[in-house]
């Protein structure tokens, strides 16, 4: 088995390239991180302090930006004056619920599609993927009228169902690829060793864990960041964070401080999730199990 260590060949050209890459990365990091930083800092500023900015080009005035007394009043207003704890709970339930349901049904369906030969399999698989081909807006109106007929508009189960209809095909599609990569011989060995078909299926789940992990993250991200479904299907009873934040923009009064704080509350969990789940996304567990 070959090792995957990178072999370095040093040459002047390589050194220049590496230097260029370094500069590019620094600029790119500034570009992506500064908005988050501004949002984070501003959420702790009084409204006056937040707009106390130096003139354009006046680099010495940059200290002005850090010259403020931190305040938590925007966070207090989110959770006391507005119902943000409920909205966080709604967001969590909608994202988590649809991720769990999609992963359960998705892995079962993907497993069957990967392991069992049956008539019309290719067509079925294409049909499943094709449900993702239409843009979300195109199906919004019919979906809304169906959901209203079923009394699901404005409820959490309705929102979870809506996300699941979009996440499930995606789950089947991603997970089928992961199951295809697990040699069937491993389950055969399990069954000969004395396990049932279901036990054999469960026994290979650790091998598709990177896939399941990746999918869960993508699925949660989709639901958590979604605005369209939340605004239309969830409106009213199942208000999520993006919709609630949007409502802080009122015609006469844009609550910048609260919006910044809401931004922090919305992004933090996803950043933490990304850090926690990182090691799950490392693939390659199946290497070397079967003679190639």
């Amino acid at each position, binding site marked *: 088995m070959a090792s995957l260590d990178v072999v370095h060949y040093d040459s002047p050209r390589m050194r220049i390239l590496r230097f260029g890459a370094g500069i590019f990365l620094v600029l790119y990091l500034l570009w992506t991180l500064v908005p988050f930083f501004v949002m984070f800092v501003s959420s702790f500023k009084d409204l006056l302090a937040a707009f106390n900015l130096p003139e354009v080009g006046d680099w010495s005035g940059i200290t002005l930006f850090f010259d403020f007394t931190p305040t938590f009043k925007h966070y207090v207003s989110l959770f006391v004056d507005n119902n943000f704890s409920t909205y966080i709970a709604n967001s969590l339930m909608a994202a988590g619920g649809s991720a769990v349901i999609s992963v359960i049904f998705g892995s079962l369906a993907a497993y069957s599609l990967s392991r069992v030969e049956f008539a019309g399999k290719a067509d079925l698989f294409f049909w499943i993927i094709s449900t993702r081909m239409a843009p979300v807006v195109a199906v919004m109106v019919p979906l809304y009228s169906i959901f209203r007929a079923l009394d699901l508009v404005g409820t959490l189960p309705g929102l979870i169902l809506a996300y699941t209809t979009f996440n499930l095909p995606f789950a089947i599609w991603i997970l089928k690829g992961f199951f295809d990569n697990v040699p069937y011989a*491993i389950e*055969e060995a399990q069954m000969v*060793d*004395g396990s049932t078909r279901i036990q054999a299926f469960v026994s290979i789940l650790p*091998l598709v864990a990177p896939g399941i992990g990746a999918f869960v993250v993508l699925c949660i991200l989709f639901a958590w960041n979604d605005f369209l479904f939340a605004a239309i299907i969830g409106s009213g009873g199942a208000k999520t964070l993006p919709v609630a934040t949007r409502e802080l923009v009122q015609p006469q009064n844009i609550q910048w401080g609260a919006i910044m704080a809401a931004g922090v509350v919305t992004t933090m969990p996803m950043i933490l999730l990304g850090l926690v789940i990182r090691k799950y996304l490392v693939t390659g*567990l199946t290497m070397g199990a079967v003679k190639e």
Partner: protein
Amino acid sequence: MASVTFKNVWKYYGKTPAVKDLNIECPDGSFVSILGPSGCGKSSTMRMLAGLEHISAGDILFDGERINDLPPKDRDVAMVFENYALYPHKTVLENIANPLRLRSVDDDMIKARVDAAAKLLEIDHLLDRRPHELSGGQKQRVAIGRAIVREPRLFLFDEPIAHLDAKLRAHMRGEIKHLQRTLGTTMIYVTHDQLEALSMADYIAVMHDGELQQWGTPSEIFNKPVNAWVAGFVGEPAMNFVTCDLVGHNQEVFLRHENFEIPLLPDQVGKLNGAASAGTARMGVRPDALEISLTKPHQPSITGEVFVNELLGGDMLVEVLLDGSRIRVKTVPEFDGQPGDRCHITVNREKWHIFDAMDGHAYF
């Protein structure tokens, strides 16, 4: 322990048959080898036994009981897969322990069993590794470990030692045979290596193109092949075949060729049954049933020309050119014929075979 019976078993993949009308009876406790070239249906046969492949037609019986419809876990067989099929996310220890864990054997017992198996297979220093950190031969031994760690009714080994080096292979041949003798468990052992089959098995089933060619003990297979295909497949160096004419003359029957005319032994004439008493046939004889010399002997002999000499350690293999064919003769290393020399070969007629020129079946 179980006896295994195949009754008219067929395996089709789509429309192509991989196993054709197989009938075999493996006695309880025997070591049976399925021998044949690549693609002849050996693995398909194994997989039907293990319950991994649907049996297209016919029945398979364990101890007289039909098992066609039993799922793998209820057949109580242990299998070594051709492609190892180890669990990549488990250590060697857990791989070997897996069948015991599934039967909820207690931990002390598992540890003892796994240690014993690992020691036998010389992989006890690898127990903490994962499969991707092992060489091919080590993986193969882990796969064997997983099979021998419990006591099933039947062992199925699909080319279990094909990837080991020659020395380890010889060692493992002995170990596997010894293990089977000690446990007394019926073993079905697939191989394409005739030496493995001849040296280990109680019975050999020779397969070709999905069809059973011959069933018999190693000595029957080697000494009394039922057709030219089996005769040519088994034995190393391979049997020589020469197409000759059969000529009857005063009660005697001669094998005639441009280079020789040799009479059959009297009892062999009877075995021809008159069927081929006039016409062509294929004579088959192994290189070690021939003797070569540079001087013309008294008895009838084959005259030819030395083509090339190969020294194989303690033996010499001489390839001799006849009209239209070549034959190989095993002799002593001292033989000093040089390429181009005229030479004479005498045949041990007890050990030659006559095959039908058309369908290849053996008259004797």
